[in-house]
């Protein structure tokens, strides 16, 4: 390292402090030997070291200090979001239940239309399924309707009660317009499925006596309810699908709910029913009204059903013979 008058200042302090390397220290000593004036300067500089004044202090240290601020977790905000979401989901579920429950229970009311359409498309019924000798001519079409009727029979225990319920609903729908109007008005007020007709205790005891169906006459068809012509068109529950226990559960539950929930019906409705239809007295009025309510939800379906169409659908041979 070449130390000269131009760069000796850079090495002077390190030389005084003794932090120069051995080679630099030797070069610095050789330079100072050549320049004794500079050596004199350096000797005086060793003592010139400033010392801090301890009396000078910063008085407001407390103003500089900071407190350890605990991190505030926005728990409330986080919880709020979930609460709002949960509330929204709950409301949605409740609304869905309200919307879906009546439709699932009243679903059988829409089946007659499907049956009617299919019946028109496939009027011919195979006679091979049941022998003619065992079944009366009125029940010739029952094999065709095995699948629609079967669900009720397979799922319910009280067959007599079901038969009458079916008959009662069909009779009322077809021949009792006065009660239908009243029930339609009441349905507008109470759209929920829980609206039920009262239980007519007087009518139920006569149930088995007034039923025209004889199960003994049709041992094979007994499992599938033999229903009169008028009842066949509306009662079928699952016309398109074959018999299966899972599919049959829906009508059963619907009927079960209807039987449990009973509310008093105005006496006028019962009177009308008694006057116009003797069968209606025998059956439970609660189920019959329920059927009427469901049908009233679908006026187009009800209009589409007529005796002629039913006959054409299920008994084309008799109609064509006429």
């Amino acid at each position, binding site marked *: 390292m070449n130390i000269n008058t131009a760069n000796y200042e*850079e090495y002077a302090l390190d030389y005084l402090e003794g932090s120069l390397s051995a080679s630099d220290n030797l070069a610095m000593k050789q330079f100072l030997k050549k320049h004794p004036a500079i050596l004199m300067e350096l000797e005086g500089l060793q003592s010139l070291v400033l010392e801090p004044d301890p009396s000078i202090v910063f008085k407001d240290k407390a103003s500089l200090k900071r407190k350890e601020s605990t991190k505030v977790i926005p728990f409330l905000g986080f919880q709020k979001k979930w609460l709002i979401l949960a509330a929204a989901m709950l409301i949605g579920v409740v609304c869905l239940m309200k919307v879906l429950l009546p439709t699932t229970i009243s679903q059988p009311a829409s089946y007659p239309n499907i049956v009617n359409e299919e019946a028109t498309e496939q009027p011919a019924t195979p006679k091979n399924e049941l022998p003619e000798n065992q079944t009366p001519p009125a029940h010739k079409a029952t094999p065709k309707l095995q699948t629609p009727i079967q669900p009720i029979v397979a799922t319910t225990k009280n067959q007599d009660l079901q038969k009458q319920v079916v008959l009662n609903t069909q009779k009322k729908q077809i021949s009792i317009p006065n009660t239908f109007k009243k029930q339609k008005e009441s349905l507008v007020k109470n759209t929920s499925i829980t609206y039920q007709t009262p239980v007519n205790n007087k009518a139920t005891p006569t149930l088995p006596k007034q039923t025209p169906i004889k199960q003994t006459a049709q041992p094979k068809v007994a499992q599938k309810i033999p229903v009169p012509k008028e009842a066949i068109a509306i009662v079928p529950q699952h016309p398109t699908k074959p018999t299966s226990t899972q599919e049959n559960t829906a009508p059963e539950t619907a009927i079960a709910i209807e039987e449990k929930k009973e509310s008093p019906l105005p006496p006028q409705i019962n009177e009308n029913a008694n006057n116009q239809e003797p069968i209606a007295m025998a059956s439970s009025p609660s189920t019959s009204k329920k059927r009427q309510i469901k049908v009233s939800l679908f006026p187009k379906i009800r209009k589409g059903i007529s005796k002629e169409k039913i006959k054409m659908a299920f008994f084309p041979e008799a109609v064509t013979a006429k």
Partner: protein
Amino acid sequence: MTPKDYNTCVELYSDRLFRFILKNMKNEADARDVVQNAFEILWKKREGITPEKARSFLFTVGHNNMIDILRKVKRMDYVERIPEKSGPSGMDNFALKELLNNSINQLNDLHRSLVLLRDYEGYSYKEIAKITQLTESQVKVYIFRARKKLQEILVSVDRAL
């Protein structure tokens, strides 16, 4: 750096920073503002600063802030100087220190700050270079010249006595 580390830095470096700034600025209020500003910035940037680097950070911020303020003050020609004492009563050791502390005010800003950083704070030349944004060679040369200046002042005072 945690808040606890920050408070430790306040305890350790606030006096030293204030002393360094006050020696350079010669105005206590300005020096206090600079110190507060430096610690404020340290608090804001504490997440990225380790406690070991806090001291260097404080002096760097304080030095830069001080330079800015000194430039403004010079333009405004408003400098409230610290009242200088009348002079050394004797040339004993205590008197020599007093004279030396007073004579440092006669240095220019850069030389003064470099000498203070070196003598007051004990920074290495490399650290001073980082704080003042100079090269290490420049720092050594400037400090050497500052000491020569101080020596000349002391010699002149001694001759006057």
